[in-house]
């Protein structure tokens, strides 16, 4: 590999890592901080991607679709929390697994009924459709770089929200001791509804932003579910920075695994996970 290719591969790794962080960010909130085993995370991602497809066909612009889709996803999350998840906080993890697995099947079937089983594409907004030349024959789509910037901003924003704001403090306190927080006069139900809805909105945002580069297809949710859990667990459950670092580590492992050790490429992510967890069983950044 010559030096230019190496640099481009580093860029690929960073960009893929940031995309993975985006995909996992909703799960960081819902699983990492609220402690709900949410197997339906991938379905929320899928809902986002299909929203992007539907709203883009309607409005003709992805940015507009995201502006419309985000509040929709947030409300959708709040309704789900009210109807289903709010009854599960005090129950066993197994029941969360059952519920969220059931949701996967329901969402998949609803999607099939509503939009069918074809593969769809979403157009990149005109503004970002350019490519930047990197070498004599290779260029880099501007849209991917834009996503990377959004991911970084998102990581910063999430960190600020969880660690630096009063709301974040209440969220963290709630994840340690629900009853105590309630006793202090905080409306824990509203708080959790908000956080859960935010998690769903983030998962949907990931789906919407990724839709133009990943395309929109049946079963797309399951492809991101496992990698999202891997990232949250490697990063240290509940840590936003941890998830970011873990996503970048996975991005590098996957990219260079494919190039240097093609026969082991499929294993690479899980090897990294095994090594990290042997070294730090609670993840790179332990929860404070």
């Amino acid at each position: 590999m010559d030096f230019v290719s190496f640099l481009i591969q580093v860029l690929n790794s960073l960009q893929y890592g940031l995309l993975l962080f985006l995909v996992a960010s909703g799960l960081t909130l819902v699983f990492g901080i609220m402690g709900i085993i949410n197997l339906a995370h991938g379905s929320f991602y899928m809902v986002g991607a299909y929203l992007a497809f539907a709203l883009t066909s309607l409005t003709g612009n992805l940015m507009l679709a995201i502006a419309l889709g985000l509040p929709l996803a947030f409300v959708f999350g709040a309704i789900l929390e009210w109807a289903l998840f709010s009854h599960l906080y005090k129950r066993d993890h197994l029941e969360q697994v059952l519920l969220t697995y059931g949701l996967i099947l329901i969402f998949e079937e609803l999607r099939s009924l509503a939009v069918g089983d074809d593969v769809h594409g979403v157009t990149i907004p005109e503004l970002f459709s350019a490519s930047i030349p990197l070498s004599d024959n290779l260029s880099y789509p501007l849209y991917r770089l834009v996503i990377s910037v959004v991911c970084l901003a998102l990581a910063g924003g999430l960190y600020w929200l969880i660690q630096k704001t009063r709301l974040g403090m209440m969220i963290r306190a709630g994840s340690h001791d629900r009853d105590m927080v309630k006793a202090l006069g905080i409306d824990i139900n509203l708080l959790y509804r908000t956080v859960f809805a935010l998690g769903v909105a983030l998962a949907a945002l990931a789906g919407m932003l990724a839709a133009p580069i990943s395309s929109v297809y049946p079963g797309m949710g399951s492809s991101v579910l496992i990698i999202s859990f891997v990232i949250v667990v490697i990063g240290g459950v509940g840590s936003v920075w941890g998830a970011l670092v873990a996503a970048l580590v996975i991005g590098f492992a996957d990219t260079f695994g494919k190039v240097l050790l093609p026969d082991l490429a499929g294993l690479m992510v899980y090897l990294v996970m095994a090594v990290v967890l042997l070294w730090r069983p609670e993840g790179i950044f332990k929860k404070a």
Partner: protein
Amino acid sequence: MKNARMNRRTLMQAMLGVIAGALVPLGAAQAAEKIKVGLMLPYTGTYAALGTAITNGFKQYVQEQGGKLGGYEVEYSVVDDESDPSKATENASKLVKRDNVDVLVGTVHSGVALAMAKVARDTKTLLIIPNAGADELTGPLCAPNVFRSSFSAWQPAYAMGKIVAERGHKNVVTVTWKYSFGEQSVAGFKEAFEKAGGKVAKELYLPFPNVEFQPFLTEIASLKPDAVFVFFAGGGAVKFVKDYDAAGLKKSIPLYGSGFLTDGTIDAMGGSGEGLLTTLHYADNLTNPKDQAFRKAYAMNYKIQPDVYAVQGYDAAQMLKTGLDSLKGGKFDKDAVIKAMETAKIDSPRGAFTLSKAHNPVQDIYLRKVEGRDNKLVGVAEKALADPARGCRM
């Protein structure tokens, strides 16, 4: 009390016996006019659209025949195989043993089809495969009772190997998923391409169903081959073609693929697919009257345009009908059906085809070019191409 219950149970059993006894002759009388077809196809998951198209095609032919095949009324048992190989043996066994089907039709996913073929061999049930292209099915695992109405992975890829060499490319990089269909496609391409004097510089594989292609695009850019050959399908195909275009490679390094790259995916590619050349046993504007009639009827029935999968389902029904014709309305005799199917000439919308010794279609492979929303016919890449059926002893 205990005695009373025993008595009642004995009475019940006796009554059931009488009822069953009465049903048996009735069943036997009906068997001569009915054929039980077990459709085992994906109706959910990634391949749901393909499973539906195959079912539509099959049922359309039955409908054209007045709801009967070779004079037999068709009774369906339908199972959603979910494209899940781990459930395949159980699903296929259920159809054969519980529903007593005379013929199994399925499926899309090669892993599932391999398990079905094993059940079919063990139970000696007639099996018609309307899609799954794994070379083994009509290769090392071929069997007298296993037929295929579609293609082998080798066929379209082999045809493309010759085309790419003819177009003057000497040095090619291949990319596909590391699973058997991908590897067999690359092997077929390589065989023809290197026979014609070309050289495959590098074979790139990524784990299925990973779609992060960027590292490979970077590698292709630095290797600078004359052309790239790929096998991808569905969402992966869309993403690869879009990424290849967005990376600016489409301008400098032509991309070729097995036809699945651009089947049912052109719309989603949003223009990135324009001009791509692929090879397959079907194209969008064949001129034979059979195809035109088929497309018209299909569009009227199902309100969508048919695709290659619908054709394969339609032809599965045609093959079965040819077999059943030989019985002349008599009792279902599998051996006679097989014999008739082996020598059949199927008047398919794709163009007529016969079956090889290993029961795979001997068919024309077309070169197609993406124009607008269609895979427009460019020409015949290989006339009557037969899969070599390596490892088949039959």
